[in-house]
């Protein structure tokens, strides 16, 4: 490992050092988003608000970390691997969030006094063919 990295440091250009530093800063941003989600999980009170905190690293944090990977490795093959990862994560994160949020509503594990509006209850009270 040391033998492999020694020639790279000799021929390293200033642009490489800048890109590596930018990648490290982006990783730090992703780590701080993970920490934000953890603090939100601890301090919020019910399932939907915790879900709100949980989606920060799921989408933005992973995108930031993937940009850091692309900046650090600098190859098109890696970029072709990373784009599907981000797209799949963007497609599947709302699925689980929707299911968990709906079950939290049905289970009663949410703070109903904190809701501003309850559109789901209004649509349940109105029959589907009532025209309202």
């Amino acid at each position, binding site marked *: 490992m040391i033998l492999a990295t020694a020639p790279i440091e000799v021929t390293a250009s200033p642009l490489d050092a800048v890109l590596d*530093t930018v*990648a*490290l*800063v982006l*990783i*730090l941003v*992703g*780590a*701080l988003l*993970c*920490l934000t*989600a*953890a*603090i939100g*999980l*601890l301090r919020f009170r019910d*399932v939907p608000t*915790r*879900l709100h905190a*949980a989606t920060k*690293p*799921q989408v933005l*944090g*992973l995108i930031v*970390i*993937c940009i*850091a*990977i692309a*900046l*650090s*490795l600098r190859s098109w*093959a*890696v970029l072709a*691997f*990373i784009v*599907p*990862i981000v797209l*799949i*994560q963007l497609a*599947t*994160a709302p*699925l*689980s969030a929707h*299911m*968990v949020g*709906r*079950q*939290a509503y*049905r*289970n009663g*594990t949410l703070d109903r006094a904190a809701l501003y509006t309850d559109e789901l209850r209004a649509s349940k009270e109105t029959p589907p063919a009532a025209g309202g």
Partner: protein
Amino acid sequence: MNILLLVIFVVFAVAALLTLWRIVTGPSILDRAVASDVLLTEVMCVLGAEMAINQHTRTLPVLLIIAAVGVFGSISIARFVARKDNADR
């Protein structure tokens, strides 16, 4: 540079520990499902960060598989809670 790496490691570790605490003391099973989803995302972030820091590509397929399959955990937990709820009525 070393200080930046150290800060990254500490932030990831603290975030994982706080999430683990919510998994242990979650009042409902849905809280635990959300927290374990966050922990899985954090595993993805740590794998990607390690790949970017050490400049290798060995864990890219792992990231792809976790992104594709990790969603089924929360969905199946949500379905399980729904079945149990309907049986109680």
